[in-house]
């Protein structure tokens, strides 16, 4: 969360616990891209559910 927004929440009268809870929720699409990932599943085709993330496999851009 941007520092200015965090500060504004603090000064808006949020309790410490409320602020912590808000900071724990990442912004949409704030899923960090790892260096390498192994998807471990039970069946061929299970990866369909995570396919939007797998589109980030860097080798595809090579």
């Amino acid at each position, binding site marked *: 969360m941007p520092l200015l927004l965090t500060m504004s929440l603090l000064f808006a009268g949020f309790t410490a616990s409320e602020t912590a809870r808000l900071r724990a929720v990442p912004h949409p699409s704030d899923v960090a891209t790892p260096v390498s990932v192994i998807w471990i599943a039970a*069946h*061929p085709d299970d990866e369909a559910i995570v396919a939007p993330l797998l589109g980030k496999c860097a080798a595809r851009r090579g």
Partner: protein
Amino acid sequence: MRCAFLILTRGEGGDCLLLNGCHPDIASVRSAEAGSASQYFKAGLILLSYPNTAGVDKPVWRTTSGDAPDVVTTVAHYIEAFHPSLVLTFDPRHGTTCHPDHMETGAIVLDAVKLLSYEPDVDLLETRVTFAFDPTVFSFAPAVAGLQRFDANEILTSTQTPAWSEITQDMERHPSQFDDSWLAAIQNVPFADRAVYLAPARDILRQQVPGCQ
């Protein structure tokens, strides 16, 4: 991002939707489809041959025979060999679809990472997917509130298409499992629901997450 798939079964428990049948057998066809999908994503593929259950009973993959390593050790060895920074698998409490194979896979992976020589990040898939048929309809939802959310409407730089379309691309590489009705159902998912939800295992396992009945 360097990627690999570790798939514990060859999927012989699935139906065959190919008009001419699955020859020589469904396991062979689905193994080839796994190869095609991994090639699409430029991911490495490790395809094992534990038995695929019918989706009702818990699989018995932990039973060992002879001097073969148990499944937890086997999975740990493959993770160690690929040495990923992130291990991604199902939450054993719901397995996304409540399929017992998914749930057991998640449990095995959580045991396997305890055997590693290093500590990769471990994320659990917290997307819940339900199906309805006639017509086929998918529902995608987060398992609980407050999860990491990847917005699948995002345009991928690699393809210049929405990330959601990667699902269709993947399903088209599994024609024995997905026909046009499945592909249409994916396209009919509301834009607001097009997301993948993840959570670090160390955090989400401390929370109550609705399981399966």
